[in-house]
């Protein structure tokens, strides 16, 4: 009998590929799996890390022409000890889980960049500065200023080396259970014009 080869559907071929026992040895299957896993994971992580660089953040004019210029004048950019905190140090969590969630949220920022253009001129950015700042302050408050604490901690702080005025305020803040962002707003960027300090009058 003449058997003509039956052409398999795409679904069938995929099912066979994933579920039909392979003719390869177990060692070969495991080795291929490990190498592919390494390549996939390494590539994914490297890509994600690349989006954490200063160069990546300022590759958009929305950041480069506004907040980046202000940040360059602050102590987090240039200081006597030569330690720099870049955008992601303050705005992207360090641990993998929180970082992944933040990166997924950043897709909304891409939508604003490429679709709505809500902050694509310095004027539009200024009109939104308060709203943007409030989002960041809220996030920092909710995480107990987690990203600040990647570098700053009560344990590593020596009050004796602080100015008396700062020492008093820090002690008071710690006693009242405050978190960094409660007092340290506008540290690396200009404060929004609508922002008011407590008890200005």
């Amino acid at each position: 009998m003449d058997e003509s080869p039956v052409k398999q559907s795409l679904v069938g071929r995929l099912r066979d590929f994933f579920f039909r026992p392979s003719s390869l040895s177990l060692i070969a299957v495991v080795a291929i799996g490990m190498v592919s896993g390494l390549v996939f994971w390494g590539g994914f992580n490297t890509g994600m890390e690349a989006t954490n660089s200063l160069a990546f953040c300022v590759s958009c004019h929305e950041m480069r022409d506004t907040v980046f210029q202000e940040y360059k004048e602050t102590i987090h950019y240039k200081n006597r000890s030569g330690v720099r905190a870049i955008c992601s140090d303050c705005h992207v969590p360090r641990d993998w889980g929180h970082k992944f969630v933040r990166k997924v949220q950043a897709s909304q920022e891409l939508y604003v960049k490429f679709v709505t253009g809500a902050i694509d001129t310095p004027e539009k950015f200024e009109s939104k500065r308060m709203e943007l700042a409030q989002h960041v302050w809220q996030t920092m408050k909710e995480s107990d200023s987690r990203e600040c604490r990647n570098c700053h901690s009560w344990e590593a702080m020596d009050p004796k080396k602080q100015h008396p005025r700062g020492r008093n305020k820090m002690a008071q803040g710690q006693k009242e259970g405050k978190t960094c962002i409660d007092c340290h707003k506008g540290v690396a960027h200009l404060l929004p014009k609508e922002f008011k300090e407590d008890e200005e009058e």
Partner: protein
Amino acid sequence: MKAGLEIRRTTIIAVATLAAATMLNPLEAAALDADAARALARQSNCFKCHAIDKKKDGPAWKEVARKFKGKPDAEAKLTKHITSGAKVKLEDGTEDEHPIVKSKDAAAIRNLVDWILSL
């Protein structure tokens, strides 16, 4: 002819009035920008220790304005105070350097100083 003379007289009066007003009120030449002054004060963390009407760790600015009222060197003294890191005495008796205002723009600093003195 008569209309021409009338226009010239009106112009002379208007110019003279403007000149007199400018001479009488030198502040008018560089009007105060209170919003800009407040913004610089916030950015420089002044309100962490000062308020306008209320004494905090530092004196109320209305009190500062009262203290300097009528003194010809008020602007110079206050400018030095917020730009040089001069020593100040804190409530608990310790001494500390007064923080330096976060601007290198002389006009913006002058605006802040003049605004405080005007309170």
